[in-house]
């Protein structure tokens, strides 16, 4: 076939750009998925005070500022060689749990929910929060808003501000909470647990109870046997804020576990000439292309990955949901845990985490030390270099800063969740393309199915890029064997 040059310079701003190449029979040979990257971010950091990184990086994204804030805060702690006292760690986890709760609620009811609750073949105009409200009722809509409100209330209480918290400092926190505030949090936490339980029930009824949707979740179209990466606590339970990074192979065997500071031993980057973004892959396994399997160093992060790598959840009701999740989708064989590879299951995994976050809010409010005033270990040494790692809603997030002895940043490196997921997203997009394009005929459902593949990963392109009206902006160009464009599908751009 004709050699086609994919020129990354012609990418669209903030959009997903896909080139699909067909052979002479009109079947898909390959799919190239290009994304824009976080250009210039490092330049923004260099020369600035290290301690400014949490508030600076929380402005990368208007949706998950807390994730960047915490990753940066942990990196700053590490660079200053300090460990926050336990009460400060409790407060940070309280803030973070409230954030995860609000974010996962929003994602399920506003983003992924519509695909299931309203249906993937429903008219576009209905596949959004409005459609969910019409289908399920206004009561749910009000509770979604309430859930967000409660989440933001806790964040503001602990963080000092709703969207961009300001209370983290090197070695701890600037403020704590009073016994009165703690009582408020306890009440909110209980509401959150009830809401999470109701959401899991809703999922079981409306989605698992619907054969068509269950098929969609179980189906092979979005199934990839890859490695998975996620944080675990010292007992191997799923963690969002503190712990070590665990990697498991497609068959569930543990490849390894490492402290975040060692991430460069584990993650390497593959340069492909047709895209700006490099593909991270597992260094010990090696790169064999965008393929499944234990020989391929491709790995996946996010809610599904976190459940796959963990031995258990930290809290009881989340644990019950975790067990039901695996029992339904990947029952153990000879007592050995099997992994769930179907990417649509991410939506369910998110709800297990929703419950876990809610339960943690209750547990943290009940911890005696949550109202302590021992909130800071003041740094005594000049800073050097530090890595902070957290689980953002979308997956593992690394912040790495180098500092001079004055505390000014000399270098910065970020690996965001979507970068970690670049290879799996590309593979899911290719799978969707292959299943829907045959003999040169492009199915109308292509864009929707591709969009569903994206949505499962909830990817963030270049963080804080925008330009949507409820749908992923996509430009899909299909080229025949001669390299000529035979069709361009555009959505929202």
């Amino acid at each position, binding site marked *: 076939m004709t050699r086609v040059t994919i020129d990354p310079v012609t990418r669209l701003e903030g959009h997903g750009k896909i080139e699909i190449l067909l052979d002479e029979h009109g079947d898909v040979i390959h799919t190239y998925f290009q994304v824009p990257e976080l250009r210039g971010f490092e330049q923004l950091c260099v020369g600035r005070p290290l301690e400014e990184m949490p508030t600076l990086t929380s402005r990368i994204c208007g949706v998950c500022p807390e994730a960047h804030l915490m990753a940066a805060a942990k990196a700053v702690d590490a660079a200053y060689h300090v460990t926050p006292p336990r009460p400060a760690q409790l407060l940070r986890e309280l803030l973070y749990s409230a954030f995860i709760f609000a974010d996962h609620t929003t994602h399920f009811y506003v983003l992924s929910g519509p695909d299931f609750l309203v249906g993937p073949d429903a008219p576009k105009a209905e596949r959004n929060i409005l459609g969910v409200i019409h289908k399920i009722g206004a009561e749910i809509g009000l509770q979604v808003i309430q859930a967000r409100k409660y989440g933001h209330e806790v964040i503001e209480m602990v963080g000092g501000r709703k969207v961009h918290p300001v209370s983290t400092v090197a070695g701890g926190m600037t403020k704590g909470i009073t016994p009165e505030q703690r009582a408020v949090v306890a009440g*909110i936490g209980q509401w959150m647990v*009830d809401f999470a339980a109701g959401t899991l029930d809703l999922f079981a009824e409306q989605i698992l109870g619907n054969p068509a949707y269950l098929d969609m979740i179980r189906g092979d179209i979005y199934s990839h046997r890859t490695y998975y990466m996620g944080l675990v606590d010292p007992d191997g339970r799923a963690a969002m804020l503190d712990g070590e990074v665990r990697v498991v192979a497609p068959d569930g065997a543990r490849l390894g576990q490492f402290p975040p500071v060692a991430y460069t031993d584990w993650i390497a980057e593959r340069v492909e000439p047709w895209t700006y973004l490099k593909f991270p892959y597992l260094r010990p396994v090696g790169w064999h292309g965008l393929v499944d399997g234990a020989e391929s160093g491709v790995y996946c992060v996010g809610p599904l990955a976190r459940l796959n790598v963990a031995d258990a959840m930290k809290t009881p009701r989340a644990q019950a949901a975790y067990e039901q999740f695996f029992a339904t989708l990947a029952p153990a064989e000879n007592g050995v845990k099997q992994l769930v590879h179907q990417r649509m299951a991410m939506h369910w995994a998110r709800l297990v985490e929703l419950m876990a976050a809610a339960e943690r809010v209750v547990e943290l409010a009940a911890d005696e030390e949550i109202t302590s005033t021992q909130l800071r270990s003041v740094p005594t040494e000049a800073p050097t270099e530090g890595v902070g790692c957290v689980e953002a809603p979308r997956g593992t997030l690394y912040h790495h800063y180098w500092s001079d002895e004055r505390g000014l940043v000399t270098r910065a490196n970020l690996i965001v969740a979507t970068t970690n997921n670049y290879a799996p997203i590309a593979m899911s997009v290719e799978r969707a393309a292959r299943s829907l394009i045959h003999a040169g005929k492009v199915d109308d459902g292509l864009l929707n199915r591709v969009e569903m593949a994206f949505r499962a990963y909830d990817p963030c392109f270049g963080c804080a890029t925008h330009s949507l009206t409820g749908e992923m902006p996509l430009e899909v160009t299909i080229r025949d064997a001669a390299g000529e464009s035979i069709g361009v599908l555009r959505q929202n751009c």
Partner: protein
Amino acid sequence: MPPASQSESSARTAEPAAGRTPASATLVVGLGNPLRGDDGVGLKVAEGLRQAAAMLPDVEIAELSVGGLALMERLLGYERVIIIDAASTGAGQPGTIRISTLGDLGLKSTANLDSSHDATLLAAMGAARSLGVEVPSKILIVAVEVTPTDAFATGLTPAVAAAIPAAIAVVLELLAS
């Protein structure tokens, strides 16, 4: 089936999600990301407005970097809202200022009112309405045309920076009418 049952514990009574009584009737929101170059023009305009608008009764100025649901939640309770934001419509040179209502925007989106992890502001307002929540009766968008960029940067390009005084004047005029 509604997801949450009311807990018998010390759960506080759920306050209505909306129904705030803000101090002012009008909210002016400068929207943008301060780290994404021209994307932050809305923030700069709002900043410039503060002094001028201090003399105007019943006007609150806010600088926000959120979209969709969070933005909708912030707008509730006001009678009138003016949002200043960057737009990349391609119809006009960078620095061009356009006024429209939220409804006028239709499928076109200004860079920042939407998010890939959230509802669009349009959908969020629609959701609020269908939930019986009181939404502002008038929402105006003052859009400053920009060329979007992937790169992180803290300043504005000259053409866009030059539009700030005009944008401030436009908003002041809207506030006076």
